[in-house]
């Protein structure tokens, strides 16, 4: 567990929020000249983090603490502010409970598309195709458009693709524990254990203390975009609970 999977250096994230009127051409020009109609909101401050290969890493925090922003910076969806560096050592996939697939395409087409983007050749996809479908328990819906799937079905499909296409890093946004019935959850957990043996890295964003405690090697606690602490679940969960009480007061 010494090789790095993810390295974040000096990550700050500032969102620029524009008034509705500033989003058209006229508003843009006025805003450029007058520098008005926009506000800045700090999403993350000075995050430095190293996650090792094969680590199950948790990120905890309350709503608006910056958990999802951090995950999206890791996935490359959002850029950090100038001066920040994100190094991802491996192929990754972000798993969230949103659809995350093309709703107009069938499950078969989405499997081919996602697995191909993850780096598999068409021949390799053909070899694991049936395993993906069986794992996702979607044998009867292979040629159904994903728009007819429930959130759980779509999430199972995504997860199955990520597992079988051998993504090195799973970025999970409130994903674990929300997917499928008890049988599928048990299957997912088995995959996580097997994955970690294979040296996969899992970054798991969650509010749920139980899953964090059960799986994570280390946990990061975020509050208002800043790191409160990084440590074992036994060290961080009490901090999180203390913070919860403080916020509720």
């Amino acid at each position, binding site marked *: 567990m010494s090789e790095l999977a993810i390295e974040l250096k000096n990550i700050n994230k500032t969102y620029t929020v524009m008034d509705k009127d500033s989003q058209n051409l006229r508003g843009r020009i006025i805003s450029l000249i007058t520098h008005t109609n926009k506000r800045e909101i700090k999403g993350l401050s000075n995050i430095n983090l190293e996650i090792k290969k094969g680590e199950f890493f948790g990120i905890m925090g309350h709503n608006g603490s910056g958990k999802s922003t951090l995950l999206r910076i890791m996935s490359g969806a959002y*850029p950090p502010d100038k001066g920040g560096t994100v190094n991802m050592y491996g192929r*990754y996939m*972000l798993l969230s409970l949103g659809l995350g697939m*093309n709703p107009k*395409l069938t499950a078969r087409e989405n499997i*081919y598309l996602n697995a191909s983007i993850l780096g598999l050749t*068409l021949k390799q996809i053909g070899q694991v195709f049936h395993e993906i479908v069986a794992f996702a328990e979607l044998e009867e819906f292979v040629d159904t458009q994903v728009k007819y799937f429930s959130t759980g079905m779509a999430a199972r499909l995504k997860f199955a693709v990520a597992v079988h296409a051998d993504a090195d890093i799973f970025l999970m946004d409130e994903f674990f524990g929300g997917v499928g019935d008890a049988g599928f959850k048990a299957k997912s957990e088995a995959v996580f254990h097997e994955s970690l043996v294979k040296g996969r890295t899992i970054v798991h964003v969650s509010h749920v203390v139980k899953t964090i405690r059960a799986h994570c090697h280390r946990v990061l606690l975020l509050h208002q975009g800043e790191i409160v602490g990084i440590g074992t679940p036994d060290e961080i969960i009490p901090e999180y609970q203390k913070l919860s009480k403080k916020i509720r007061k």
Partner: protein
Amino acid sequence: MLQKIIDWVPENNRLERIWLMAKFDFVTRYYGSFLGLFWALLKPLFQLAIFYVVFTMLIPSTTDKFLLFLFIGIIMFQFFTESVHGSMNIFKAKKYLLENIQINKLDIFYSGISATFLGFLFNFMAFALANLILNNTFSWSILLFPVVLANLILIIFATQLIFSTIGIYVKDIDNIWFVLNNLLFWGSGIFFDLSKLEGKLALIEYFNPLAGILTNARDILIYARPIDIQLLAINLLTAIVLLLIGLWGFKKYSAKALEKL
């Protein structure tokens, strides 16, 4: 520089991936519609029929081989306009990929152009058939058509990059495109012969690369004339300059595409 060239050579499954995305883009455009893929062919044929009726019966055109002249003009312009229009909301349309999986953003442009190119090929085959039946002239300069087509693809790619990048920050990009598209339609000689323009207007082929591309395409495909090398060179140069501007802007400003959605 060498690294950039190497990146262009498909590593692993990059070509397969672009092809898959293009194929699915093409298929989803016509998914579930009554006539399916025939829409790809019917749309330009319908436009062709309208213009042909107008310019043969109502305001007769004096342009030689007018049907073929119009046909190639419509399908090449449609290739341009469909590709660019499709790219203006490309980040929104491909959010499901860009947000969840590591993908080179440019790949979604390559696949987008490939998808509209498939549609263009359908139409071009229909044009080629009509040209074979109705036209009795032939010149080997027809072999240069791929160069003219490559010029058009470069223009499309550059325009896509420019408009999709502006579209991240300016939400009324559709209206801007509507105006520009109309200007280009009327200024590219889709249904009239630009060579009949006089004075400064005759230079339009040099300033508007679409007009120059259409002139050269018609000369070699329909009229068996030699390609206008000077026009081709200027159109290619314009495409390269636009592409460099597009790539620069895209690299500098597209990073925030997803958070601006």
